[in-house]
C-alpha cells in the first residue's frame, strides 16, 4: 500500500480546494470520488419496514413474563460504592476474620488451666460420667452427653494443668477404661486407668 500525497487527503477532508491540486493528483481524487459515488447507490430491500414494524406492533411481554425472564437470564450485578464505604467494609471483614467470634462464649480458661475433652462410644448407654483424680473419683459431677444419639458421648471441661487418671462410668455402675487415651496405668484394684495430661490453653 503506497501512501498518497497529503494534499489529496486535505482536498477530500475539505481542507484544501481542488483547484490548488496539480492535475495528476486530481485524477486520484476523482477516482476516489467516483468509487464513493458508486458505493452510494442505495440497495433496495423489499419488506424491511414491514418486517420491523411487525415486531414493533407485537405486544411486549407482560410484567410477569419480563420478571420470569429477568430471573432466568444471567445478570452482571454491579455495586457502586464510595471508597470510604468500601474501606469500612474491608475493616469490618478483617475484624470478623481476625477476631475469634466465640471470644467470651467458650469456657473461661485460667492461666494455669487447660481444656480436656472426653469422648467415648457407648451405643446402649443411658448415662455416662467421667470420674478421675480431678474430681476425687466421684460419679455424677462430670456427665457426658450424646445429643445426636449416635452412641458417641462427649464432655468438655476446664481442669487445672496436670496429669490425671480417669475412667468412664456407664449407667452409674459399669466402670470402663478409655482405651483411646495416650497412656494407661494399672491401679491398685487390678484395673486399667486412662491417663490424661492437661496443658495450659493459653500461649
Amino acid at each position: 500500500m503506497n501512501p498518497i500525497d497529503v494534499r489529496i487527503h486535505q482536498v477530500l477532508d475539505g481542507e484544501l480546494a481542488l483547484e490548488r491540486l496539480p492535475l495528476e493528483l486530481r485524477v486520484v481524487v476523482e477516482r476516489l470520488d467516483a468509487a464513493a459515488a458508486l458505493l452510494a447507490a442505495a440497495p433496495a430491500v423489499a419488506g424491511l419496514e414491514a418486517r420491523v414494524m411487525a415486531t414493533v406492533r407485537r405486544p411486549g411481554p407482560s410484567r410477569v413474563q419480563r420478571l420470569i425472564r429477568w430471573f432466568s437470564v444471567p445478570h452482571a450485578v454491579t455495586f457502586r460504592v464510595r471508597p470510604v464505604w468500601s474501606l469500612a467494609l474491608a475493616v469490618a471483614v478483617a475484624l470478623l476474620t481476625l477476631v475469634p467470634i466465640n471470644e467470651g462464649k467458650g469456657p473461661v480458661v485460667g492461666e494455669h488451666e487447660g481444656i480436656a475433652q472426653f469422648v467415648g462410644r457407648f451405643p446402649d448407654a443411658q448415662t455416662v460420667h467421667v470420674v478421675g483424680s480431678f474430681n476425687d473419683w466421684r460419679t455424677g459431677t462430670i456427665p457426658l452427653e450424646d445429643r445426636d444419639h449416635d452412641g458417641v458421648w462427649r464432655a468438655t471441661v476446664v481442669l487445672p494443668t496436670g496429669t490425671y487418671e480417669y475412667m468412664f462410668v456407664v449407667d452409674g455402675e459399669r466402670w470402663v477404661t478409655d482405651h483411646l487415651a495416650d497412656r494407661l496405668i494399672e491401679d491398685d484394684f487390678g484395673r486399667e486407668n486412662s491417663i490424661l495430661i492437661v496443658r495450659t490453653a493459653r500461649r
Partner: protein
Amino acid sequence: VVARVLGGDREAFGLLMRRYDSGLLRFATRMLGSRDVAADAVAESLVRAYRHLASCRDPSRLRTWLYRIVANRCKSYLARRTVADVALEDAPPVADGTDNEGALERAEQMALVARALAQLSPDKREAFVLKHVEGLSYQEMADVTGERIPTLKMRVHRAREALLQALEDHG
C-alpha cells in the same frame, strides 16, 4: 417523533424508519458485502433501537445513534463470518433497455469497487463508508464509533490508500 414513539405511538416509529433506513441499509451492505445479510442486520438493529429508544438521550443525534447500533451489529456479524465476496447483486438492475450497455458497464464498475472495498479491514471499511458514502463529519463518526477524531482521520487516510491499491489490483 421520538417523543411520540416513547409516548406509546408505535406507528410513529415507521416515520423514523423511512427517514433513515435506506442509509442504514446501504452502510450495512457496504460493511457486510451482502444485501440480504445487511437487511437482517438492519432489521435487528431497528427493533433493538425501538426497544431502547428511551436510552437515546439526545434525539438530535438519533441518526448517529442508529448508525452506532447498526455498526455494532455489523461487527458482531463480521466476527462470525468473513465478508462475502461481493457479486453483482448490489449493482443497480439493468432495467432500461435503451441503455443496456451503459448499465452493464456501471454494474461491472460497481462490482469492482465493492470487491476492492471488501479487501479493506472492517475498521478501514467502516471509516471510508461513513466518511465518503454516508457523508458523516468526523465528529459524527466519533459519535458512531466511539473513537477519537485524530484516530478516525488517520483511519480514513489509510482506508483511501488501501482502497486505491485494491482498485489497482483488481482493475
